[in-house]
């Protein structure tokens, strides 16, 4: 928690945010936005939120940037400039300044930065910190709160990812049967080579081939070791998804779909949610509440109710990782190929 460092980073963040909105080349503004996310991740590490920093580094800066780039690739790169938009922008600037001034006035009512006795830091969160080890044997409080104490929350967040994936899939996929003709004469942008010219670089292929196993091993470690160190299902799942995206980028769509076909993608996304909800339902049948893991010691060998909670958390994290991994991969495939699943970035 280095306050000076925090202040420098936040100032840089402000600069990046302004640049991202002002640069007229969309590609540039996306890259600046990626830098913004990385700086944000440093700020979160400064504020003691190491798990959030990890998530931001993988999700916000990594996969989010990839999604934006693939959209620019399948649409257009330049932001045109028109004078008649300026008046509206100026008017909105005034409106936003008024709102901002009102919000700034309330800032002094908030507790000071780093105040350990503020309401947010005393009531519920202290219970989690003091009881996590005794009740679940999990030192990483973030994981135990995520997967156990607030299990319902995480389950429905996983469902949101699942639904968003299904939405993207349905939105973009629908066009293939409707108007195949319109899809074929998409304008190609100057951003990369035209899609029919396949990029065939030995260096990129070999490098990604060498990197992918280590990325996946690391991702599995992140998922499995989430109880003791920063990490868990969300972060590990995104890294796994990123390794698949790397393969899809360095090879072509045929290779990408040979790893995971469309059918498998949809099945695996649902399987992840099913694992999570299924663990909840098993608890149900063993006589506990939904997602009350402690009753699982009846079927897990050599465990007591406390260790059963720890083990069930791992199962839940695996379900989350599966859903997140496959949905990130599927979203990338849909966005970069404009839903046609034939060729992309």
């Amino acid at each position, binding site marked *: 928690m280095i306050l000076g460092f925090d202040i420098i980073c936040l100032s840089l963040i402000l600069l990046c945010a302004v640049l991202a909105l002002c640069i007229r080349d969309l590609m540039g503004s996306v890259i600046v936005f990626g830098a913004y996310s990385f700086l944000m991740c440093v700020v979160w590490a400064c504020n003691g939120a190491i798990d959030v920093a990890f998530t931001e580094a993988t999700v916000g800066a990594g996969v989010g940037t990839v999604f934006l780039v693939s959209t620019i690739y399948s649409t257009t790169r330049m932001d045109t400039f028109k004078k008649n938009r300026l008046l509206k922008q100026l008017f909105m600037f005034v409106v936003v300044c008024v709102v901002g001034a009102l919000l700034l006035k309330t800032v*002094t009512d908030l507790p000071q930065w780093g105040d350990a006795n503020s309401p947010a830091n005393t009531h519920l969160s202290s219970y989690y910190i003091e009881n996590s080890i005794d009740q679940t044997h999990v030192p990483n*409080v973030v994981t135990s709160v995520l997967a156990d104490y607030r299990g319902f929350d995480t389950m429905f967040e996983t469902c949101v990812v699942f639904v968003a994936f299904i939405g993207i899939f349905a939105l973009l996929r629908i066009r293939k049967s409707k108007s195949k003709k319109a899809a074929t004469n998409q304008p190609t942008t100057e951003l990369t080579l035209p899609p029919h010219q396949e990029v065939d670089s030995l260096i990129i292929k070999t490098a990604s081939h060498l990197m992918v196993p280590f990325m996946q091993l690391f991702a599995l470690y992140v998922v499995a070791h989430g109880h003791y160190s920063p990490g868990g299902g969300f972060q590990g799942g995104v890294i796994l998804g990123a390794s698949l995206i790397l393969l899809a980028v360095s090879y072509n769509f045929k290779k990408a779909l040979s790893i995971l076909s469309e059918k498998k993608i949809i099945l695996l996304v649902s399987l992840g949610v099913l694992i999570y909800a299924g663990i909840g339902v098993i608890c149900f049948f063993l006589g506990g509440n939904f997602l009350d893991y402690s009753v699982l010691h009846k079927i897990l060998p050599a465990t007591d109710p406390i260790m059963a909670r720890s083990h069930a958390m791992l199962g839940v994290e695996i379900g989350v990782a599966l859903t997140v991994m496959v949905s990130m991969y599927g979203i990338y495939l849909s966005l970069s190929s404009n839903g046609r699943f034939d060729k992309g970035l």
Partner: protein
Amino acid sequence: MEFIINYYNYIIVVIIMMLGLWGMLALSNLVKKLISMAIFQTGIILFYISMGAKKGASIPIIKQAYDEHHHPIHQTINNMDYANPLTQILMLTAIVVGVATLGLGLALTQRVYSEHKSLHEDEILESLS
């Protein structure tokens, strides 16, 4: 000066949120609108994380001591020594859901582009009428 240092995070939160809001309202490019939405979202996340920070506290992973038989030694855990885990988990899931909604927004943008051949709000409105 003291005021600025104590409330710096919150001041930045307001500025970032207003930048995002301005981008969503004033910019006509759809991709830039989505970037503004993501910027607005990070403003809210920064607000929560700043709330949960404690001066002089460690990350929320409990230091556990073990005896020679690898059994955990019971120890009293002080709330002040660890950053607030609750605000962190709320924001952790918010980031992942944020990127999923960003993807959904981008998919909608692509659909709009394939219909109207433009990413600009005013040009799309023109071609609609």
